[in-house]
């Protein structure tokens, strides 16, 4: 993990640690100079242990979420690094010839190059060793068990390899020497032996050019060979003879000095020597280890970013909780603060006292939060490991101390900032009013200059942001600008006599309507919009809904009382219970907003996940109308698939309706007319069968094309035309999370432009060009890069590229699984490895769903905020209303009635927050569908009501549990005692 929101982590950690230490030092010096204030602050901490526990619970959330996000990032990064080092072993740099397939493994060249290179770089202190090797995918069969592996990775290694690279060892750790192999002998990997069910001494047959070549298994290794886990090793000369390539290799591997990871640090120096040495040879060097480690770091950053972005909602709710908590602490101590002020305590002293207390909470809560986050991260890593286990991805828990430090510092600083602001706000109390606990008077509107200034500022900023949004095409600035203007105008109208209820209701309705308006109506359709819009939409919708609810609370409560007030015996309790939330708008509003915000995000995420999931209900949509995909070995390609199926005998050819053949190669391309770097892109060449059957549509088509079919037919029959994956063209509206860097990004237009301008891509070595005439829909999952015709691909690569990938569409009702098996059996000598697309899609969807659920669970942690808020409010209410409870008990309220009144009060806030969150979440998802269905046709709004009901029930029950204790405490208030302290 290297970056957080684009900022390098190392300096960020240092910077945050310094700022935090500075804050602590300043606070320590200040507390030493104001010992009395510090004493007051520190003695307030253990005053009410239950309340302190709730405060710590609320305050630790930010650090906990940060820590969990960072832990996940660290783990992903570390695990991918592990996988990279497992795959590559000691190999740091690979040199190969011109690639003729996507993996680039078949470009053969003279073995002598390895010896020459060894002469040039062998003595360099950065290089540990150089070795040539042969590496090819081959079909293998066990004649004894009749099991086959369509694409085993065959390695031809020699003595120089064994000298410089990892030793090949068996499960007992004993070394297997390649030079010890006799002719017709091979070592097999333990996974390959397991799949083929063979043991030492058994024979396996490798197929090349349709002929079997038997090898006796001389040893089974568990470690030491790079690449796939299913592999076999023969001496280099044997491999050369098997593939008919005497004195040729297709790979030179270089290992740098140092271990598998540290060696990569010498890559730049090694590459600097290699590049001039390889000039003119047609060979290219690739810093594979460094690239893999970079990918690992980027993946870690991307994962962490997703979780950090999603945590923002909970952190925002957490900030509100910190503020609310301190405002309530101040309310609780109003009388004593008033007395302290009367005795000569300055405003500054009060601020300091609260800040000291806040600092104590912040330091302790962030420490607990960071450690708990580590635990949560660990749990989530376990769940991720389960989600990805079927894809052979292994997650190993890892957390860097730096991540913990940064989570802790962020938690402390965020809390301190909010605490300092709250302290400043509460310090402005009126001494007499505070001492006598008299409510603050309403400021006369005519004299409310601050209100006027705020309204004017909001309007001015609103206009500024709106204009900035228009000029820079920024949807964010535009949407926020108009929102500010709406609030500003309503505040101004209030200042000039519009009643509060009307002014705030209008502001609330305005905000909600504005953010729910489809982009085509709001005018933001053609502006750039990203993930931050989701965050802002959440905040603004919740703000609007809270304005509306709080200022019309009496109507809501009347409705509640009308419905439930008729219940015998509930009337008095209900009347008391619902009157308190109405009387304290700030507290109710804050708790309402917290609940609403968290539930809103959970509902939106749930609906979007379920709706996206609807895409997977028809796998053909994702595969372009095909049911089975298969690959054959490059060494034994199928010349004519239709004929091969007829001949195979294991499949009823009538079951197969269409076959598409695809050749594939990785080429270095860039957009013509730009001077950007050439990037490696997979290019697929399709045949007529594919073009005639594929059902993929396009987001953009070039001028002159009016249907998808026209594009496919033109591409198949006219030379030099291509279509690209949707990831090749940027879009203004991009709600995707994290950075999924495309192979190539075409410049000068965006997907929203609809008509594709004339745009070409060119190949580095040959200078050949392809004109892009279509940008595929996002659901074209089986086209990762560029697609052209096979003839165009051959011409671009200046050599014929044999098709090795096939797509099959089967007759409706035919059994895909048995056809897939039949294909593998019938074409075993061609190394046919086939997959039922529906199964593959289901597996991918399953993993995706688990990941989504994990993210949902992570966001659900934010509920702690809302729940803690209700707990803090209820605990405070017990203290605050002690005398009132005494009076109620005196006039005849039973204990249960007092308890019930408290529970109803909390339930009212929780249920209203939950309901608003569900409503807003549903409404926003509905509005987002507009954009989603445009990008991914077939997606439909699916509302997972059961899941939403579950989320709501968990949130409500948890809130009841937190309020239960204070409510019980309230019911135990002894009337005589409560009334004694007048």
């Amino acid at each position, binding site marked *: 993990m290297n970056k957080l929101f684009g900022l390098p982590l190392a300096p960020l950690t240092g910077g945050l640690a310094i700022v935090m230490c500075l804050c602590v030092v300043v606070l320590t010096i200040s507390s030493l100079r104001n010992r009395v204030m510090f004493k007051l602050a520190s003695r307030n901490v253990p005053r009410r242990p239950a309340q302190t526990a709730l405060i710590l619970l609320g305050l630790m959330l930010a650090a906990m979420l940060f820590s969990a996000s960072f832990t996940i990032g660290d783990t992903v990064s570390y695990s991918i690094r592990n996988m990279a080092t497992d795959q590559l072993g000691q190999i740091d740099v690979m040199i190969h010839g011109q690639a003729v397939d996507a993996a680039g493994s078949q470009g053969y060249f003279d073995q002598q190059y390895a010896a020459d290179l060894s002469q040039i770089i062998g003595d360099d202190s950065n290089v540990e060793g150089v070795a040539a090797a042969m590496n090819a995918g081959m079909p293998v069969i066990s004649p004894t068990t009749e099991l086959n592996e369509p694409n085993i990775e065959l390695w031809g290694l020699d003595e120089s390899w064994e000298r410089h690279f990892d030793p090949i060892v068996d499960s007992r750790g004993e070394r297997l020497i390649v030079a010890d192999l006799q002719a017709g002998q091979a070592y097999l990997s333990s996974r390959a032996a397991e799949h083929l069910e063979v043991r030492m001494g058994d024979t396996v047959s490798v197929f090349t050019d349709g002929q079997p070549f038997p090898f006796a298994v001389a040893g089974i290794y568990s470690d030491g060979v790079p690449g796939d886990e299913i592999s076999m090793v023969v001496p280099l000369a044997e491999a050369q003879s098997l593939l008919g390539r005497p004195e040729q290799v297709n790979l030179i591997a270089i290992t740098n000095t140092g271990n598998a990871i540290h060696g990569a640090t010498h890559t730049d120096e090694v590459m600097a020597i290699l590049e001039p040495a390889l000039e003119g040879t047609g060979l290219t060097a690739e810093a594979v280890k460094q690239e893999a480690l970079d990918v690992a770091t980027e993946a870690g950053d991307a994962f962490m970013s997703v979780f950090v972005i999603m945590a923002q909602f909970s952190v925002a709710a957490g900030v509100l909780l910190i503020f609310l908590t301190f405002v309530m602490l101040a309310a609780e101590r109003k009388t004593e603060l008033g007395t302290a002020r009367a005795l000569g305590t300055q405003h500054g002293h009060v601020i300091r006292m609260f800040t000291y207390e806040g600092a104590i909470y912040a330091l302790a809560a962030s420490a607990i939060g960071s450690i708990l986050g580590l635990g949560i991260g660990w749990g989530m890593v376990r769940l991720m490991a389960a989600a990805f286990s079927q894809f052979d991805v292994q997650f190993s828990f890892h957390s860097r101390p730096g991540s913990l430090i940064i989570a802790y510092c962020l938690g402390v600083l965020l809390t301190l900032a909010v605490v300092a602001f709250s302290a400043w706000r509460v310090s402005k109390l009126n001494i007499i009013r505070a001492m006598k606990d008299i*409510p603050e008077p309403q400021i006369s509107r005519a004299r409310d200059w601050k209100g006027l200034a705020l309204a004017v500022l909001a309007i001015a900023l609103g206009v500024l942001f709106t204009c900035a949004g228009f000029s820079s095409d920024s949807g964010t600035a535009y949407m926020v600008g108009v929102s500010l203007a709406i609030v500003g105008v309503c505040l101004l109208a209030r200042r000039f006599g519009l009643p509060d209820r009307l002014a705030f209701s209008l502001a609330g309705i305005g905000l909600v309507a504005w953010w729910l308006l489809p982009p085509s109506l709001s005018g933001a359709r053609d502006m750039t919009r990203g993930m931050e819009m989701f965050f802002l939409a959440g905040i603004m919708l919740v703000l609007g809904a809270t304005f509306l609810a709080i200022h019309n609370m009496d109507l809501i409560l009347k409705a509640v009382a009308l419905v439930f*007030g008729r219940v*015998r*015996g509930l*009337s*008095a309790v209900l*009347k*008391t219970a619902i*009157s*308190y939330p*109405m*009387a304290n708008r700030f507290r109710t509003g804050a708790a309402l907003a917290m609940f609403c915000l968290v539930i809103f995000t959970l509902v939106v995420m749930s609906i979007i996940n379920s709706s996206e999931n609807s895409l997977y209900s028809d796998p053909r949509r994702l595969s372009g109308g095909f049911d089975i995909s298969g690959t054959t070995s490059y060494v034994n390609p199928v010349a004519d698939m239709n004929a091969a199926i007829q001949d195979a005998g294991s499949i009823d050819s009538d079951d197969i309706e269409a076959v598409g053949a695809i050749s594939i190669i990785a080429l270095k391309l860039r957009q013509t007319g730009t001077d950007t770097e050439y990037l490696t892109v997979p290019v697929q060449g399709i045949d007529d069968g594919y073009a005639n059957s594929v059902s993929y549509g396009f987001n953009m088509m070039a001028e002159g094309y009016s249907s998808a079919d026209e594009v496919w037919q033109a591409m198949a029959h006219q030379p030099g035309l291509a279509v690209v994956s949707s990831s090749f063209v940027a879009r203004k509206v991009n709600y995707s999370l994290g950075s999924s860097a495309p192979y190539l990004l075409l410049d000068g237009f965006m997907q929203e432009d609809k008509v594709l301008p004339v745009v070409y891509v060119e190949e580095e070595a040959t200078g050949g060009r392809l004109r892009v005439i279509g940008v595929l829909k996002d659901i074209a999952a089986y086209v990762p890069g560029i697609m052209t015709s096979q003839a165009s691909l051959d011409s671009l690569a200046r050599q014929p590229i044999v098709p090795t990938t096939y797509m099959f569409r089967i007759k409706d009702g035919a059994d895909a699984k048995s056809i897939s098996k039949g294909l593998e059996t019938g074409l075993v000598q061609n190394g046919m490895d086939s997959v039922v697309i529906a199964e593959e899609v289901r597996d991918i969807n399953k993993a995706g769903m688990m990941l989504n659920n994990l993210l949902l669970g992570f966001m659900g942690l934010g509920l702690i905020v809302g729940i803690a808020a209700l707990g803090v409010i209820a605990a405070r209410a017990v203290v605050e209303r002690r*005398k*009132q409870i*005494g*009076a*109620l*008990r*005196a*006039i*005849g*309220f*039973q*204990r249960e*009635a007092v308890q019930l009144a408290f529970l109803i009060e909390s339930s009212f806030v929780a249920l209203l927050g939950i309901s608003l969150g569900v409503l807003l979440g549903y409404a926003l998802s509905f509005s987002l569908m507009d954009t989603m269905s445009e990008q991914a046709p077939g997606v439909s709004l699916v509302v997972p009501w059961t899941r939403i009901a579950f989320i709501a029930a968990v949130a409500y029950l948890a809130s009841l549990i937190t309020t239960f204790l204070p409510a019980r405490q309230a019911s135990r208030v*002894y*009337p*005589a*005692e409560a*009334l*004694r302290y*007048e």
Partner: protein
Amino acid sequence: MLHYRHDGGEQEMVRQNGHIIEVKGVHKTYDTGAVKVQALRGVDLSIKKGEMVAIMGPSGCGKTTLLNCLSGLDDINQGEVIVDGNHITQMSERQRTHFRAQSMGFIFQSFNLLPVLNVAENVELPLLLSDVSPKVARQKALGALFMVGLSGQENKRPSELSGGQQQRVAIARALVNEPAIVWGDEPTGNLDTETATEVMRVLRKLNKEKGQTFVLVTHSPDVGADADRIIHMRDGLIASDQHNGTTVPAAH
């Protein structure tokens, strides 16, 4: 449904001697862990139905404790308290609460109105507790407010009223369910002289009209002067018992 012990003999006793409150040898000790404070040291007392009694004495003499023990707000350590023929010391906490809701009214020094409810809602609360229908409760609350001279103020919040008005709301709340006994703990303690006189006038009028028993704890000699009987307390014991100017030495 709660059932109180309506002992035939004791009900008869009330009828014969007219005593609605009988207190025998009541002791109350506050145990704070470190210190034990003997607030009541064996109080014997009888109060007749319809009497207005003022309990007076210096701070800490046990006046409020006595009121709390008699009204069932607090437990006693020893002795007997019989209210309207019911041994309230033998009642469960739940029964005592229900008994209070039906038979007692309370007036506190600082009014103890619920600030979040309006005047009418505050007054009707004891009725709603007794499962009176909301409509009837509101009618009775308005009637009670009329009695205390607060008609037209029913929709105001307590914070919008003066101290005297707030205490009158508390009186209306105490009387709305027509309780047999009204307890007042310093009912005029937070009021100026003029308002205090006005409040006492209202209490006296209601006492005369409705025949309810009033037991008022007070420091104010004016309140004492308005009462039928003044009981002076000192150190947890009744020091003197004065009837309409006649001082009766306390029986210990």
